[in-house]
């Protein structure tokens, strides 16, 4: 028996980057960037100090929301937001299903595939709020521009995820249907649709949720909905009404999330 020293100490190996030089270079780079970035952030501390009072009033407004005095505006904004969300989600689904099928590599011929992918890329690359600005400039103020914005944004989201789902289907089932001499339409209906339907429903519910949240934002640039009410409330420093609007938005999002998880369980 030789008395080799049993190691009493152990250091955990680094989890991500093994090469110490690269690791330290990254740390140094991050530090330099952080110093530069923080250095260019100009903060008017006097203004912040004065604002803290207003911040506290906002917290109070959030704790004691005022639903009643602006209820007419709030309810109108809510109705606009909800109807906008509903119609935009339905219209988005109707448009995005064919585009999604067209953007699936295993179903569509090449030219259609590239065309549909281009539509998806276009819809996904622009922020909702920028689209809303452009559409408000074209269609005038109001929920119609918001409806178009949300529809446009829904197309990019749903088509992309649907196309990826279709590309991931079990090819054996499609092969089996094809072997019976099915046409392309029958292939989509009997081999693809049953495999992607549960997930598609889940995605649609999720998008409904997102659309409602977005509808609270695009009102800021004039596209109707609860966002316009919120914007007005904040501009007037009516933090108790703003708090009420925010609480309503949170409650509706929570309700939508809760019910959508139930519906998804029921569908699958």
């Amino acid at each position, binding site marked *: 028996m030789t008395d080799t020293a049993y190691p009493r100490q152990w250091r955990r190996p680094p989890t*991500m980057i093994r090469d110490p030089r690269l690791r330290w270079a990254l740390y140094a780079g991050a530090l330099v960037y952080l110093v530069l970035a923080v250095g*260019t952030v100009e903060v008017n501390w006097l203004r912040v100090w004065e604002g803290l009072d207003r911040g506290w009033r906002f917290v109070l407004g959030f704790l004691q929301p005022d639903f009643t005095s602006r209820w007419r505006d709030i309810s109108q904004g809510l109705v606009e937001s909800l109807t906008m969300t509903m*119609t935009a989600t339905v219209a988005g689904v109707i448009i995005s299903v064919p585009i999604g099928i067209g953007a699936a590599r295993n179903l569509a011929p090449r030219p259609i595939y590239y065309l549909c992918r281009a539509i998806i890329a276009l819809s996904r690359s622009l922020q909702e709020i920028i689209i809303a600005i452009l559409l408000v400039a074209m269609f*005038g103020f109001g929920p119609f521009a918001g409806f178009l914005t949300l529809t446009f944004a829904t197309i990019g989201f749903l088509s992309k995820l649907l196309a990826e789902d279709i590309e991931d289907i079990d090819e054996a089932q499609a092969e089996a249907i094809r072997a019976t001499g099915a046409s392309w339409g029958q292939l989509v209906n009997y081999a693809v649709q049953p495999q992607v339907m549960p997930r598609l429903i889940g995605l649609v519910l999720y998008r409904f949720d997102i659309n409602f949240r977005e509808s*609270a*934002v695009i009102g800021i640039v004039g596209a109707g909905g609860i966002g316009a009410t*919120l914007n007005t409330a904040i*501009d007037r420093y009516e933090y108790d009404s703003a708090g009420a609007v925010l609480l309503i938005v949170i409650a509706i999002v929570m309700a939508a999330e809760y019910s959508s998880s139930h519906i998804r369980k029921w569908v699958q």
Partner: protein
Amino acid sequence: MPVTQTAQGPVWHLRSPRARLMLWLGWFALVALTVWCWQIMTRDTIWLFVLDAPAQAADIGARAFPPRWSYVEKLWWPLWDTLNIATLGTMLGVIIAMPVAFMAARNTTPSAMVARPVALFIIVASRSINSLIWALLLVSILGPGLLAGIIAIALRSIGFVGKLLYEAIEETDASQIEAIESTGASRAQLLTYGYWPQIAPAFWGISVFRWDINIRESAVLGLVGAGGLGLQLQASLNVLAWPQVTMILIVILATVVFSEWVSARVRHAII
């Protein structure tokens, strides 16, 4: 078995008559609801403006092209600001989201009765309010500037990062944690040796993903006064300088494509 007997013999159906009726009623209700919503929504729509839209679009399009390329010189500084808002905001958000995620995860929460619901509420509240709304609030509280943008991005990121991270924590392998625990490790050691190595890839992946989203969002935060490219966009829109708007949109698009490329590369390297 949903089989109906006909003169030509039994016919098989996918669903029973009752299920078919329910399905049909469900679709009918959906269509009716949509039509009803459509009518309420378009009650105040001025159709003249809608019909006029193609002409308006052509008009704006004609004014917006060609973009004013020389304007890009004035955009470098706002671009740097935008990147800073996104990066610093993501960092701040991730730092706050870490403890929230550990409080929300079922296997690490200090108390399932108090801490977990509080953490879940923080996550939902942060997730349901867009960063633009946070920015709107913070600009009216803290005054316009980068700070409001950074905090707005951070507040929105807490929910996103927190939710994905706590799901990753709940998926950790309990036997590894138990192995560390059985050596007599303290809670801090349990975190660094048990949980952290298991969630580190998810953590970096989520952070980079959120950073990518934040770049998009910080580009428009300036619309409500929180600094960055959006501020220039708002200024150009206010004076109807459409060639400048096009230039800004091109810069935003390029930034978004770049950040998506970076995030895809990093996530590819991690996973």
